[in-house]
Every structure is written in C-alpha cells, then in structure tokens.
C-alpha cells in the first residue's frame, strides 16, 4: 500500500514495546533497570491575603548522587497558574508540559482565563488513569475568577485544598514550620518569608532536598518568579582562575577534522 508508511508514524501516547524485554532482562539478571532521577524534594505553597506563594528547593537526585544542583521545580501551567513538582523528575516535567498545552488550547477556545480547579483536575485525572504509576506529587497554585487557589494533587489521584501545603521528602520539616508560623490573611512579605523558612528547613534537615530556594508569587493578573531567592549553597571551592593544563600532556593518537558547511543565507535542503 502506498500509505503503509503512515503506520510507522508515531501515534502519540506511551510505548510499551520494551516492557517484556526489560522484565526478562531483570529476571535473568543480565541488567537491572537504571536509576531514574527523583526530585527528592521539599516544596510548599501558602495562601495569603491576595494571592498564592509557591516555593521549592532546587536539588535533583539519582540515588544518593546529586544530579542537578540548580534545577527548576516550579513549572508554569498558565499565565495565572503555577505548579511545584515532587517525585519522579521526568514525570513532573512532561506531565506539567502536557497539561500546559491542554490549558492553552482551552484558553484559546474559550477566550477566558483558566481555572486552577481545572488544571488540578486534569493533573489528577491523568495520574489516576495510570494507577499511581506516574510519580507526580504536585502543588498547584494560582489566582482565577474565584480568587487565590491552592490545591495538592498526588500520584494516586487524590486532590486536596488547604491554605498551606507541603510535599516531597522534606515535607515533614517544612510542615513543622508551616504549622507553627502560618496565620490567616498574611501579607505578601510574611507569606514569602514563611515559604522560604519552610523550604530551608527541608534543605537543611532532609538529604533529598538541597541547594537554593525558588519562590513564585502569584497575585491577580501578575506573577513574580523569584529564582534562587536564597542561594547560600552556591559553589565556593573553585581555585581562583581555575586549573591550567600544560599542552601536550594529553597525547593525541589520531586526529580527524571535518569542515562544516557554514550557513550563508538560505540553507540548502540536504536530503541525503
């Protein structure tokens, strides 16, 4: 058939081709599945007088190795909605990205602002569909027509809404701070400071969390992303000027140079 190639085009959705192979390999002991990145996180969110504050640490771990010292865990879902992600890093990144697209389409179709409730519902609907296998623990915050909203969405499909939330491996440390210091109708300043204190408790008392604090403040028609608002854990140990290497200490056995076509004007289409 002429159109047979259509069958080879990606269909979208997950691909389970390797599952049987991977299980066989694990059972016969040839190869264990490689470790995936976890965010191993402390994230929190707080409602205040006229908005929401979301905050997160910036460490991503693979086992006990710090894979990323300054990753971004606060994802943008819509101009008025943000979301903090804990759990499997790949899931958080891709699920939020997917929902972001759905929300944008909805916005373009309806010519109206997205509701936080809807974003959260889409997230839990997706997570529930996969029976908790998708490791996303999210705190969604935003300001919509019903005012400031804060919703926690866990991987098993639960959704709860409270004035303050903490999630991730450092959630206990962060919740301790929240429980002692939270009060109703805080000012922006108080809410930001409370979030920073909560995340710092996670950073210093939980090994899965670390590095810096990111904060996002969402108020009506405005958001402020304060990346690395606290950065007490930046690298300080480099030798000033760095290390110099003597030439010729590394012995080159063979060298091959390949000249690249330098783009000039219209680029010719290469179909080789």
């Amino acid at each position, binding site marked *: 058939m002429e159109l047979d190639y259509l069958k*080879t085009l*990606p269909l979208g*959705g*997950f*691909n*389970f*081709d*390797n*599952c*049987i*192979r*991977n299980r066989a390999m694990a059972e016969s002991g040839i*190869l264990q*599945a*490689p*470790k*995936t*990145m976890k965010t191993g996180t402390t994230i929190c969110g707080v409602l205040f007088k006229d908005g929401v504050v979301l905050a997160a640490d910036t460490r*991503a771990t*693979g086992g006990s*190795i710090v*894979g*990323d*010292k*300054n*990753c971004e865990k606060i994802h943008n879902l819509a101009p008025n909605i943000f979301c903090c992600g804990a759990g*499997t*890093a*790949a*899931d958080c*990144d*891709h699920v939020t990205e997917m929902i972001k697209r759905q929300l944008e389409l909805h916005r373009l179709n309806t010519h109206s602002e997205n509701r936080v409730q809807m974003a959260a519902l889409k997230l839990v609907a997706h997570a529930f569909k996969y029976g908790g*296998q*998708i490791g996303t623990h999210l705190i969604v915050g935003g300001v919509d027509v019903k005012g400031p909203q804060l919703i926690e969405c866990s991987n098993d499909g639960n959704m709860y809404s409270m004035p303050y939330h903490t999630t991730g491996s450092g959630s206990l440390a962060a919740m301790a701070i929240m429980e002692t210091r939270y009060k109703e109708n805080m000012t922006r300043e108080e809410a930001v400071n409370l979030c920073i204190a909560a995340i710092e408790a996670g950073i210093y008392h939980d090994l899965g969390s670390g590095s810096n604090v990111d904060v996002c403040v969402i108020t009506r028609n405005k958001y402020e992303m304060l990346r690395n608002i606290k950065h007490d854990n930046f*690298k300080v140990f*480099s*030798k000033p000027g*760095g*290390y110099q*290497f003597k*030439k010729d*200490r*590394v*012995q*080159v*056995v*063979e*060298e*091959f*140079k*390949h*000249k*690249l*076509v*330098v*783009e000039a004007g219209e*680029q010719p*289409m*290469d*179909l080789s």
Partner: protein
Amino acid sequence: MSGHNCVAIATDTRLSTQLMTIDTSFQRVFKVTDSCLMGVSGLGTDVQTLQLTLRSFYFSNSLMKFKLNLYRLKEGRDMKADVFSKLVATSLYEHRFGPYFVSPVIAGLDKVGENEYSPVICTYDSIGYREHNGQFEVAGTGAELLYGVCETFYKPNLEPEQLFEVISNSLLSALDRDSLSGWGAKVYLLTPTELTVRSLKTRQD
C-alpha cells in the same frame, strides 16, 4: 562540556557484557546535524536503536534519525540543537514504562547572533528527564567519578583548545578509576565551522 562558541563530548570506546570486553572501538558519539552531537551511553542495543548513524542504512530503523528526517522534510531545514534536545526528552518519555536503558548526552551550538553561539549541553535519565545547566553534563558508568573532576576542572567560557585540555583531563582521570570504561578515548570538539575528532592515548586495560 561547553566553552565560548564551542562544545565538546569526550567518551571511551569500550563495549562490554559486564566485565568482558567485546568491542574496543565502539562508536557512541554521532553527528546529529552540523551544529549538534549526541553521545549515548548504556545498553549497546538501545544505543544503536536510539541514535542515528552516518551509515544510516545499517540502522535504518533508528529512532532519532527517522524523526530528524521527518522534521527536515516538513520544515526544509535542520533541527536546532535546543529543539533536538527536547525531542530526545519526549522520545525517551514515550517509553516511560518500558524504557531504553540509555543516558544520552547532547552537545550543540545554536546561533543566537552574528558570530555568537549559545551552547546546548544536556543529559537525560533513561525515562527522559532533561538535565541542563549550560556547563557540563556527565553520563554512564563513570558518571559519579566524572562529577568530581568536572566540578574542579571546568571553567566557563573556555576557548576550543583549552576546552579540549579540560575535557580530556577530566575524562582520563575518571577513566583511570572506572573498571568498566577504558580502551581508548575520543574527544569530539565542535565549533561553528569545524568538528575535530581526536583519539587520546589511554591505558589499555
């Protein structure tokens, strides 16, 4: 690793079934476009399935080659390194529940102005978490060892030849302490006009 208007990937050349060496000149790094390189470490069969090769008829079903060609046919231009890096992430995430056992590294240069290129350096876990800090990324069996040396040796904005020294010394130091890597090393140095491939002298054990 990234430098000023240049990027580099360094790799060893060993392929093994656990402790037994079966290939001492395994090609892991491939040119994606004129401005992008991809190195893939991990399970040999998955490395070859995922990556595109210059000898494409051997692996005509290779996943990324297919997607790249499709993009080129649709758009009539080559994919930018940054775009490609996201495509790899989504392709890996597609296999979220039956992953390829690979951790790719991508090094590329995207033109941002006249004679100004922004480096794209990123690595992934096997299910498509894209890690990128614009400095250096490591992957493979020696990743833990490489983190340490790269952290000390790396400096931002290195010129190509300095970058070569830094990346070579980092790789060789880690290689010496990783029993699973070795048997020669290759450094791929990419500048806007030239791709230089150098084989390094290493221990042969």
